[in-house]
Every structure is written in structure tokens, then in C-alpha cells.
């Protein structure tokens, strides 16, 4: 184990691994698109025209880039929450429910206090979103910590409960008065709308909030005592317990923070939308756009690090945004996007192991045979071992 290294080798070595790490998921996405192309051809659609439309729709100009950024916001917010949960050794599949809980609570605040000035109401609805999502995350967290309930199953069930509860509210208590029976609230107070950013695009404050949350997530995880404890619990709960750390409390906190991030996404989806209301028509997934699941992929794509999840979400958001153009271009039903989405998840999740292997290979290549020594700290690698350790955990 040599302590001193040539600086150039150090730099190369530092770059080789992230580059290898980024290349693998990109190949995974390409593989998913290839399978998607076969699907399109089988449906008598022109796959090449379709994918051209996808890329120009996602990244083709200022408006397209703005729409992509808007699409990636909920992915980033959920993704940051996923980083927190996974690093603490908890698998959170409940993003969908946490988004909905955040959206419902923030909508109730905006309906109850419509007269507050914008400078107060906007932060208030975002806070309400965080609290709603946080509570929805803390429940499965507490069930796992104190009743030993498998969080994968409980968070999925919490998704179903939240979706049905939203459907109930929008059919009954919160439905717009006098309207034809569309499952939606009235247009929410002007003072609750997220302000548009200058530049003439549809970009609004939510984009900055999502990036801010990512930075806060980074500080929480890697620059605070609390984050140190969460990561320690995720790495080895038994050793952490011996060291006197509050393991059960940490599990609840991790899922509460994770849910809070998703809850903010719920608020942003309501108050940053063009209609400025909570809409349940077409089912809960039409509202969340599956961001609760896709955020997981964005976070894995970003190596379970809040800051690298920013570009990862943007790329993934572009794929989803461009998917709408693809679907319009080749005239197939919108369900195509969900199917493509599933393929991307399948391939990206499957590629993560290859990513670790390629990273190790890159290390060996660059250091020419000295073998991987201190590289275990690399985010992607660490993330993998942690996730692997998690899922085998006590259920």
C-alpha cells in the first residue's frame, strides 16, 4: 500500500472510475431504447423518427431544456430522499405515496390560508409538502424500527393507501364546486404559485428548490453528525448499535427525511404545474408521473450521491420528456412511455454490478497492477455494497 502517488496517476485514477461509472448506465439506457425500438417496429411505428423526436423534444432548444428541467425536478427531489434512505440502509419504494401525501397536505394549506402573502404562503406550502411526505415516510420507518416490518412491502402498501385516499378526497371533500365531475380541486390561490424564473421559459422556482434540496441532502449526509450516524447505521447496524448509536431512531429519521424530500416534490408538482391545482383524474400515477419509482433510478444512476443525482435526474428527465414527443410522433398510446420507463429501470438496475466491476478494472488499468487499495470509498462502489447489505437486512 503506497501512500504517496504520482499526482498525474492520482488524477487519472480519480477520473477513471467516475467515467467508467457514468458509461455503464448510459449503455444500459441505450440497451433499453434498443429493446424499445424493437417494440416500436413490432407496432408498425418508425423507431428512428421516434427517437429523433425524443432527443429533439428533450434537449433540442431552450424551451425543451426548460421542460426537461421541470420534468426532472420531482426525480431529483425523490432521488435525494432515496440517497438518504439507501445510505441509511433502508429501501424506500414509497416515493409515490410520499409525493401524494405532500401534495395533499400542501393543497390543504393553500385551500385553508389562501389570503396569506406570497412570500409567506409559498414557503409554507413547500414546508407542508415536506411534513406530509415526512409523516408518510416516518410511518413505515417506525414500523420497521419498532415492529420489524419489511419496509419494501409497507412502503408499497402506503403507496396504495395514499393513492386511494387522494381519489376519495378529490371525489368528495376537495372536488371543485359546481364543476362537471372531474377529480380535481379548484384553482389554488395565486399567492401559492411558484414564481416563474426570468428568461421566458416555463422554468419556475421549483428547479432552484430541487437543487437546493440536493445540496442540503449532501450536507446532511456527508457534512453533519446526523448524516455520519445514518451512514454508519446503513453500513453496519450491529456495529453501530455497539458503538452506542440509536439505530431504531436512525431508521425512522432516514425514512422521514426521505419522505420529506418526496413530499416537497408533491408540493412542487401542484404549485409549479400550469393548472395550479391537485388533479387526480386518470389515477394517482398520472399525477406523480411515476416519479416515486423513477427517482430511485435517478439516484442509482447518480451513484447514490445527492450532487451527482442532479445531472442523473436531468438526463433521465430528458428521456421521459422526450418520450412524450416520441409517442406523439409515431402515434402510439402514451402507455408506451411507462413501458419504456420500465425497460430503463430493468437495464439500469441490472447494470450496476457491471459498473462496480468496470470501475475496479479501470482502477487496475490506471494504477497498472498495483491493485485497488483505498478505492472502496468510491461512491458507486460503496453504494452498491450498502444496498446489497440493506436488502438482506432483518425483515
Amino acid at each position, binding site marked *: 500500500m503506497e501512500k504517496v502517488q504520482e499526482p498525474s496517476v492520482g488524477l487519472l485514477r480519480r477520473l477513471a472510475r467516475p467515467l467508467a461509472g457514468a458509461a455503464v448506465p448510459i449503455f444500459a439506457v441505450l440497451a433499453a431504447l434498443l429493446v424499445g425500438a424493437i417494440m416500436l417496429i413490432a407496432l408498425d411505428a418508425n423507431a428512428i423518427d421516434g427517437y429523433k423526436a425524443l432527443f429533439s423534444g428533450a434537449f433540442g432548444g431552450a424551451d425543451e431544456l426548460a421542460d426537461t428541467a421541470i420534468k426532472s425536478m420531482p426525480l431529483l427531489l425523490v432521488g435525494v430522499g432515496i440517497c438518504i434512505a439507501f445510505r441509511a440502509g433502508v429501501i424506500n419504494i414509497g416515493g409515490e405515496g410520499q409525493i401524494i401525501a405532500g401534495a395533499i397536505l400542501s393543497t390543504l394549506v393553500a385551500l385553508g390560508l389562501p389570503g396569506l402573502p406570497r412570500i409567506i404562503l409559498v414557503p409554507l406550502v413547500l414546508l407542508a409538502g415536506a411534513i406530509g411526505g415526512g409523516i408518510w415516510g416516518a410511518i413505515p420507518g417506525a414500523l420497521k424500527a419498532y415492529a420489524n416490518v419489511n419496509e419494501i412491502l409497507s412502503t408499497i402498501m402506503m403507496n396504495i393507501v395514499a393513492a386511494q385516499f387522494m381519489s376519495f378526497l378529490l371525489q368528495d371533500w376537495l372536488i371543485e364546486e359546481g364543476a362537471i365531475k372531474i377529480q380535481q380541486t379548484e384553482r389554488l390561490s395565486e399567492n401559492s404559485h411558484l414564481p416563474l424564473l426570468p428568461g421566458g421559459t416555463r422554468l419556475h422556482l421549483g428547479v432552484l428548490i430541487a437543487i437546493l434540496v440536493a445540496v442540503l441532502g449532501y450536507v446532511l449526509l456527508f457534512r453533519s453528525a446526523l448524516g455520519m450516524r445514518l451512514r454508519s447505521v446503513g453500513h453496519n447496524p450491529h456495529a453501530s448499535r455497539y458503538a452506542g448509536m440509536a439505530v431504531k431512531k436512525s431508521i425512522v429519521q432516514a425514512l422521514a427525511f426521505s419522505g420529506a424530500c418526496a413530499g416537497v416534490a408533491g408540493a412542487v408538482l401542484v404549485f409549479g404545474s400550469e393548472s395550479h391545482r391537485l388533479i387526480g383524474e386518470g389515477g394517482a400515477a398520472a399525477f406523480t408521473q411515476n416519479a416515486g419509482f423513477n427517482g430511485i433510478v435517478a439516484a442509482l444512476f447518480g451513484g447514490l450521491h445527492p450532487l451527482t443525482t442532479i445531472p442523473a435526474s436531468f438526463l433521465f428527465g430528458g428521456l421521459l420528456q422526450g418520450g412524450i414527443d416520441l409517442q406523439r410522433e409515431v402515434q402510439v*398510446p402514451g402507455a408506451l412511455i411507462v413501458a419504456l420507463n420500465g425497460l430503463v429501470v430493468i437495464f439500469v438496475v*441490472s447494470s450496476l454490478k457491471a459498473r462496480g466491476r468496470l470501475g475496479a478494472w479501470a482502477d487496475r488499468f490506471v494504477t497498472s497492477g498495483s491493485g485497488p487499495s483505498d478505492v472502496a470509498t468510491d461512491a458507486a462502489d460503496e453504494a452498491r455494497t450498502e444496498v446489497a447489505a440493506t436488502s438482506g437486512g432483518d425483515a
Partner: protein
Amino acid sequence: MWSDFFTVSVIVATLASAVRFATPFLLAALGETIGQRSGVLNLGVEGVMLLGAFTAYYVRLNPSGWGWAGSLPAAILAAIVVGALMGLVYAWMTLVMHAEQGISGIGVFLFGLGFTDLLFQKQVGVPLPIRGLTPWKIPLLGDIPHIGDIFFNHNPLVYLAYILVPVITIMINRTTFGLNIRAVGETPEAADTLGVSVNRIRLGAILLGNILAALAGAALVMNTNIFQQNLTAGQGFIAVALVYFGAWRPGGVMAGALLFGIVSSTVLQLKTLGIVSGAASALTAMAPALLTIVVLVIVSRRIGQPSALTRPFDRDA
């Protein structure tokens, strides 16, 4: 209102449909049990159920000109083939690529959800009913008052699901394949040392699990006789939870499936009788998910899952 529900005929009908509604839960959860005993968690059950349901529905919908290929056995066989294909996909993901099992199933779910919806809209368009399976009344047993109606007057897939309970119990506990499944699910390293191919056993378990999930989808669509977007509505996820409920034993899984069958059929009966309506039906639709959480809280203290669950096997590691 409620007095409408508490009549003998309504209760018998509700229990009979409970036995029927339990079938998809039971088939899917039995498959998941086999997979989990071998150490593989599959959250993709929901997606595979949808694919199996659509396949059976679509094949059955097109009998004109298809000849025997549009027959009921062909519809069920097609679902089985699709299940086996999805099993190969999942085996590639988990055994070859070592994908994280808690998440990879979500990909299968989203794919199944989107792809079946896409095919349904593109190839079928309007919800056309199919002629599904008809009940086979079992001689003598089917004539027992009430009991016969509840248990012995169902379609063949229902009987198959319940017959599989003892069959799979025996398979897991009394056959070499079952012993191998348990070995690779508890201590894959030891099994490997003794010459058991861990991944080959797991492949077999995954294939069986996915075939049963697809069959569960077919059973579901044979109950409803119609396909729609997200037909399963979370039943596949509940089936995974039932494995925990049943403590990884087919008998326990059956008890759980029957419980959920009773809840589902009661909710439907209350709707049919107009006891709950409109918005309240969204609240009753929460019941299975809430019940699942309660059940998990109750059972989670006493059980131990297969030690190697979700842990990929890598001889070099």
C-alpha cells in the same frame, strides 16, 4: 341496507366468490414462496400478472380464424409461456447481473403495466368481454347445501390453485429439488460446496414463480372476463406480502389468500348492494393495503425469512 347483506344467500355467494377471488393471490403467492425459499425476492409479480392476464385475454378474444389457438387451454398455455419468458428475464437480471432485487421488480412492474396498457389500447381498444372459464361442479360434493356452492362449484384454475398447496408443500419438503431450493435459500455457499448449482436451482425456482404469477393473471382475467389498464391494482404486491404472512409455507400463504379473498369479495358485495357507493368505494379500496400493513405488523415478530433472501450468489466473492 346492512340487513340486505346478512342473508344466507348473499353470505354464501360472498364466500363462494371469496374462494374464487383468493385464486390469483394464491397462485402468485405460491410462486413467490418458491422463489423466496430459494433466496430470490421478486417484486415484479404485479407486472408478470398483468402480462399473463393480457396474454390470456388477447388469445381468448381472437378465436375466429385462430381455430384451436383461440381456445381456453391455448389462452392459458400462452400465459404460461409469457410467464416463463419473464422468468428468463428476471433470472438474467438477478442471477447473471446481480441486480438489486428490492428495485429490479419495480422495473418489471412498470414494464408490465405500460406494455399491457399499450397493447390493449393499440390491439383491442374497446373493452370487449371474453368467454372465460365456466364452473365445473364437482359431483356429490357440489350438491352439499351451501358448502357445495362455496367450495365445489368453481372453474378449473380455482381447483388447480388449491391442489397446488399440498403439491408445493410436498415438493419443498420431500423432494430433492425442494431440498436444494431450501439449501440455496439458506446457505448457498454450503450448497455450492456440496456440488449443487446455486444459480441453476434458483433459475428453476424463478421460472416456476413467474409461471405461477402469469397463471395468476390468467385466473384473474378469467374471473373478470375483461381486461383493463392496471387490472391487478396491487394484487401482485399483496401476493408478495402474503408470503411473509404465511411464514414462507404454502399452507400459511393459502390462509392469507383466503383472508384477502374474503375482504375483496365483501367489498364488492357491499358495492353491488349499494351499501357503499361513490367516493366511499375509494376508501374501501384501501382496505386490502391497510390490512396488509396490519397483518405484517402482527406476523413480523415471529418469523425468520430465508437467510440468503435477496443475496446474490457469487462464488468468487
